[in-house]
């Protein structure tokens, strides 16, 4: 069953209240909530997650569509069951180089890794950059275009805020969002698989 709640133009907390009502009316299933601002998006997402629902957000011309799954049939209907276990792949990159050894080789390998993983199936959900890994997502990075392409494909790009500050790169971040240890740990715990090159 599909339900749509349009809360565009409503001030907080009304989007959350309408979402709450709509969620209470369904036993299980997917509820799509359409909002038109970041505050409402984050509030509705928070509320749904606090009610143990899973949330997927998609942007559409400045609006946000939140797909909220309630109950145990959390998968979107069309997905085959065997896909479970590979749904949430997180790539954890804790260095700007791949492998231990020659630095130049490490850089070439990391470039190849990032280029190749764009086409990987199933597609990773998130990429987390930690320590010198954050350099890859900042101005002057040779692999910036690959990462921007990933973001366009819907992969979430998270860079550690403490690391960006440490290297003085916070203002030079060119792709994805600044994240924090809290969110990073949550992402790793929730992941079905964590890949670290």
């Amino acid at each position, binding site marked *: 069953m599909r339900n749509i709640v349009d809360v565009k133009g409503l*001030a*907080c*907390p*009304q989007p*959350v*209240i309408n979402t709450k009502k709509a969620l209470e009316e369904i036993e299980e299933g997917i509820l799509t909530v359409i909002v038109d*601002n*970041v*505050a*409402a998006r*984050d*509030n*509705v*997402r*928070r*509320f749904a997650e*606090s009610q143990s629902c899973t949330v997927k957000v998609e942007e559409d011309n400045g609006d946000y569509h939140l797909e909220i799954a309630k109950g145990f049939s959390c998968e979107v209907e069309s997905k085959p069951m065997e896909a479970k276990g590979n749904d949430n792949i997180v790539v954890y990159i804790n260095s700007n180089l791949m492998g231990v050894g020659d630095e130049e080789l490490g850089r070439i390998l990391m470039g190849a890794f990032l280029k190749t993983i764009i086409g990987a199936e199933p597609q990773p959900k998130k990429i987390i950059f930690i320590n010198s890994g954050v350099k890859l997502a900042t101005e002057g990075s040779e692999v910036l275009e690959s990462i921007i392409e990933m973001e366009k494909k819907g992969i979430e790009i998270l860079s*550690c*805020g*403490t690391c960006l*500050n440490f290297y003085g790169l*916070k*203002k030079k971040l060119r792709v994805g969002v600044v*994240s*924090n*240890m*809290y*969110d*990073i740990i949550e992402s790793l715990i929730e992941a079905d698989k964590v890949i670290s090159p």
Partner: protein
Amino acid sequence: MIVGMERAEDAGVYKLSDDLAIIQTVDFFTPIVDDPYMFGQIAAANALSDVYAMGGKPLTAMNIVCFPIKTMDISILRKILKGGLDKMKEAGVTLVGGHSVEDSELKYGLSVTGTIHPSKVLTNVGAKVGDRLILTKPLGTGIINTAIKGGMAKEDSIEMVTRHMASLNKTASEIMQEVEVNACTDVTGFGLLGHAFEMIQGTGKGMIIHISNIPVLPEAVNFAKMGMVPGGTYRNKEFRINQVDIDSALSPYLIDILFDPQTSGGLLIAVPGKKAQKMVKRLREEGIEDAAIIGEVMEDSEERILVR
């Protein structure tokens, strides 16, 4: 003119003679709680706070009323005015008049006149390196008020947040003048970090805020987690996030509290390091139980606020 519109101050100060200046301020807003009598009290406490934040003594006030007389019962307005008047009495302020207009949306507040010695005016400028920062009321009123609007808050949290919003900053202001502090502001619409930043803006100083020392209303973090966050919190965060350096291990919901717009919030006071402990003790003895040292002013040419 001692304090005008050049800095982000809510009140103006005009010198009348060598030992007397007047403070003038005005503030009014739409209801935040359902109880009209309590709304009157909160609106009055909020308007008076601008005088207290400067260390002044409010003397007279005038009511400002916008009321939908065609659709709302006049008894509601009477209760609001009674709440405001009772708060003015508690503050030792005389109501000298007022003005009302018909409006589709109810609003109430005060225009307040107070006095102060011209050399004792406190503003948000003047904090020195090594000063401790004292906050006198718990944070989270914006988030809890949103939860009230959303029908999610229970009776006891409504009662508690209402009590904090209606409490005067009078005692804190008097203690602050007695201790002799360097700077003060009241925490309102821009949230704690927004107003804290006004204290260091353009001064070449920074601040460290110790989050575990900050008094927070019970349930505020919980409501933040449930998405009961006012749009103003997100806007405040967006506006100041580049000047703030937040320890990434801290809960993002707790960070929201630091940007949460406060209604009739507490005073944020910069006091010399060696006086700080004593001042907190005095504040608590006088019934301001939530008063706490929450941070320190530091040397920092980049004017950042570190949150740890």
